[in-house]
């Protein structure tokens, strides 16, 4: 992340110094402004979904989701604590249901639970981040709606290829995590 961030900012500013020096800082600021607007919107989204998650913790639905995903999480996240695995299960469940906004707070909590005070990502955290960054959301609802608006004759015909592509991408991500474990061991936490 360090290198990527540094490269994008330096190259971006460098290119803008040549083409549009007056707009460079403005562009950086508009990015930050986006973050402000998005964060405020996210407060609303989190208030709703963290509230619902609070209810789910008490009515047994959270436990149900944890149990449903146990066969998967027990294999993929062997070394993690029960609490971390429960959070991971709920994050995956929220993703599968297409509730990305509920998946985010659960994911953050899962990472915090797995990492403790450790600043270097553990194997389990790497796998979890990869799964979420590859996208395990199976219902491309927004895209089907966009296609419909654009006048598509059968907007939902992308559903099957999307589900297959999502699955394959996640599998490749998981496979890469396992394959590169040896190489990454040098940086082990």
């Amino acid at each position: 992340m360090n290198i990527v961030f540094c490269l994008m900012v330096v190259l971006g500013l460098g290119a803008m110094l040549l083409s549009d020096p007056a707009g460079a800082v403005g562009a950086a600021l508009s990015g930050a402004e986006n973050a402000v607007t998005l964060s405020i919107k996210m407060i609303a989204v989190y208030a709703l979904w963290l509230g619902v998650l609070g209810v789910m913790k008490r009515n047994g639905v959270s436990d149900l989701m944890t149990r449903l995903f146990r066969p998967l999480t027990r294999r993929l996240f062997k070394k993690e604590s029960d609490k971390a695995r429960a959070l991971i299960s709920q994050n995956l469940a929220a993703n599968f249901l297409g509730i990305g906004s509920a998946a985010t707070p659960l994911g953050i909590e899962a990472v915090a639970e797995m990492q403790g005070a450790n600043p270097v990502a553990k194997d389990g955290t790497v796998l979890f981040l990869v799964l979420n960054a590859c996208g395990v959301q199976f219902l491309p609802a927004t895209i089907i709606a966009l296609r419909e608006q654009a006048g598509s004759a059968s907007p939902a015909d992308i559903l099957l290829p999307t589900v297959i592509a999502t699955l394959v991408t996640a599998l490749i991500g998981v496979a890469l995590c396992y394959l590169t474990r040896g190489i990454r061991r040098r940086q082990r936490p």
Partner: protein
Amino acid sequence: MSAYVLPAFIALNFLVGALRRVPIFDAFLEGAKGAIDLAKQIFPYLAAVLIAVTLFRESGLALRLASLLSPVFRLIGVPPELTELIVVRPMSGSGSLGLLSEVYRLYGADSYPARAASVIVGSSETVFYVAAVYGGGKVKKYRGAVAIALVATFAGTVISCLLCRLL
């Protein structure tokens, strides 16, 4: 379909809670009180990512990288019309939806590039956003997680194009 899923999901949860005599109002407050702290915790990461991404796009670098890559993409069966979308996809969710609409407008929503673009966007995530936000404060060294996600996403992109030719 998903228009029904979310409201039904929330209502069902409240109903199940009520049947099990859960104090729903208290349980809701218990959860929701963390909302502002969470947004506060995420904010610096979000700001950093969005500043970098905005600079990268506004400076025209994203477009230049896209045009540099498009002959390579053609070779592996990815429509060159989609290069910019593919470059932007891991960086910006709203940016890639904007480019997706642009593809629909230019080539028609049922054309091959439009279908491929839909599957590419639908089967992937905003990698940098997820890494920054999920790692939020806890993870300083990602140990290849971001790189792996990018490689897997790219493999998924190639597969998406192939699937749209076959299905």
